[in-house]
C-alpha cells in the first residue's frame, strides 16, 4: 500500500484542511502506516465471510412517526459562536460560485 502525496493533498482539500508541502511529506507516510495496520484485517477475510457494516445482525429497526419535543431555540443556539436573527451565523462561504 502506498498512499501518494497527491492523494493526501486531495483528501486534505476535501476536508477543508490546508497543508504545506512539508506537512504532506510528514503526514503521508504516517497515514500509510495506519492504513497498513487496518489492512491486516484483509488477511483473515475469506470469500465465505461476507463484508459487514454493522456489529449486530439486525434489520428494520424503526421508530413510529410520532412528534417528540425539540430543543428550545435558546438551547439550540447556546453553544453557537455567533447568532443573528435566531440563526447560526457562519463566516463567508468561500470557494463556491453560484
Amino acid at each position: 500500500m502506498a498512499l501518494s502525496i497527491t492523494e493526501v493533498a486531495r483528501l486534505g482539500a476535501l476536508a477543508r484542511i490546508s497543508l504545506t508541502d512539508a506537512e504532506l511529506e510528514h503526514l503521508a507516510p504516517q497515514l500509510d502506516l495506519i492504513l497498513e495496520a487496518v489492512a491486516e484485517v484483509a488477511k483473515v477475510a475469506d470469500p465465505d465471510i461476507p463484508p459487514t457494516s454493522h456489529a449486530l445482525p439486525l434489520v428494520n429497526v424503526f421508530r413510529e412517526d410520532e412528534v417528540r419535543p425539540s430543543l428550545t431555540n435558546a438551547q439550540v443556539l447556546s453553544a453557537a459562536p455567533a447568532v443573528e436573527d435566531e440563526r447560526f451565523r457562519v463566516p463567508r462561504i468561500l470557494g463556491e460560485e453560484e
Partner: protein
Amino acid sequence: MSEEIMDYAEAMASFDPVLGLEVHVELNTATKMFCGCVNQFGSAPNSNTCPVCLGLPGALPAVNAKAIESAIRIGLALNCEISGWCRFARKNYFYPDMTKNFQTSQYDEPIAFDGYVELEVEGEPFRIPIERAHMEEDAGKLVHVGGATGRIQGADYSLVDYNRAGTPLIEIVTKPVYGTGAKAPQVAKAYVAFLRDMLRDLGVSDVRMEQGSLRCDANVSLMPKGASELGIRSETKNVNSLRSIEQALNYEIRRQAAILASGGKVKQETRHWHEEGYTSPGRSKETAEDYRYFPEPDLVPIAPSREWVDELRATIPSPPDVRRQELQARWGFSELELRDAVNAGALGVIEATVAQGCPPQAARKWWLTELARRANEAHLELDELPITPAQVAELQQLVQAGTINDTIARKVIDAVLAGEGDPAQLVETRQLATVSDDDALSDAVERAIAQNADAAQKIRDGKVQAVGALIGAVMRESKGKADAAKVRELIMARLG
C-alpha cells in the same frame, strides 16, 4: 449575461436531445427522517431541531417507519422493483447547511429501482425509464447576508436555519430518456407534472414546487442526428416551476446546439436557471468519489418483507391519467371541464366535495369560479383556502333548496373564508334566507312598478326583456335576498 443560442427549430434539425431528470420530493411525514422533530415548513428558525438533526456528538439516528413506507409506495407507483435489503450511506461533504459534515443518503443500494412512467404529450405516448428512487435527508437553509442580492458571491456572511435539516427526501432519478425529439422540454414538464399528481394522490408529499417540497434538476445533452453516443450534459439545478422546466430545457438545448454547431465542446457543469429566461454556469461537478460514501454504521439495514410490500401495493391508487378518466366518467364532465379542473389542481377538492353529497357539476362550479378567484387573489392553492369541502357541499345544499340564491351564496363564502362560521349557521343567524313570501314580494313588486313606470309600460307592450330592470329594483330593495325567479313570476303575472 446570456450566451449565444440557436433557433430551436434549427437545433432540432441537427440534434436529438437526451434528457435526465432528478426530482427531489420532501415527504409529509409528521416527523423528520431520523428524529422526532416535527417536519413542518414555516416555523421560527431553528425551533424544530434536536441533537440528532443538529448532528451533536453522540446523538444517534432512528429511522422513521412512515418514511420507509412512503418510499416503498412511491417506488411501487413508479413500477419499480423494491429492494429486499438495502442500507443508508454517508455522503461526506463540508458545507454549513449540514452539521454532521455528511448527509445520510442511499448510495448504491436504493430502496426502489428499475421502474418506468408512461405519459402522453399532445396525444403522443412516452415511456420514461426510472433508474432509482432512493431515500435521503434534506439539508438546512442558508441565507446570505451582504453583497448585492442575497446571493452567495459577495456575501459578508451567512445565516443557517436547521429546521429543514433531516426532512425525509426521496430522490427519483430517470435513466437517459431518448426519443423525445423536439418535444423534450414538454416531456420533461409533463413528467414532473405526472410525478406531482401521483405523489399527491399517494398522499406522501405536499408537492409544493414554490415551497421546495418538489424540486427538479434537469439534465440535457445533445446527440448529432444519427449518432448513438451520448453528448456531454449540463445539469440545471432547482428549476422550481413546471413552466421553468420547459423553458430552461428549451434554453439549454439551444445554447448547447450553438456551441456544438460552431465546433465547440459543451462543458459538463451545473447551471442555474434565471426567471429572466437564461441559465448561467455554477460550480463544476464534484465527482462521486469526492463524497467518499460508506455504509452508515449507526443504522441497520432495511429489509422490507414481501408481505409488507404486497400490503403497500394494494394501497397504490391508479396512475393519475387512469384516475382522471374514472372521475370524468363518474362525474360526467366534458374533456374541457376535466382539463380545467386538473389545471386548477381542483380534482382533490371536487372529489372531497362530491363525497359530501354535492352534485359534481355544482362542486366544479364553486371550486373553479368563486373559490378559484379567491385562491388566486390570496396566492393560495384551492385546498389551502380556509373553507372545507363539507362547507362547500353545505352551501350548495342551501342553494339547491332555494334557501339562498347565488348572490347571497357569494356573501356566505366570504364569511366562511373570514372564519365566521358554517354556511347554514351563517344564513340562520344573519337572516340571509331568500324572501319568497308572496305578500312581502308583491309589495316590493308594486313599489318597483310604481318607480319604474317606463319599464312597466314596455312590459305591458310585450317588450319582455325590460323585466330585468324591475327584477333589479326588487333585488336591490331586498339586498339580494329575494328569489329572483319568484320575482319574475310575480311581475309577469301582474303586467304580462
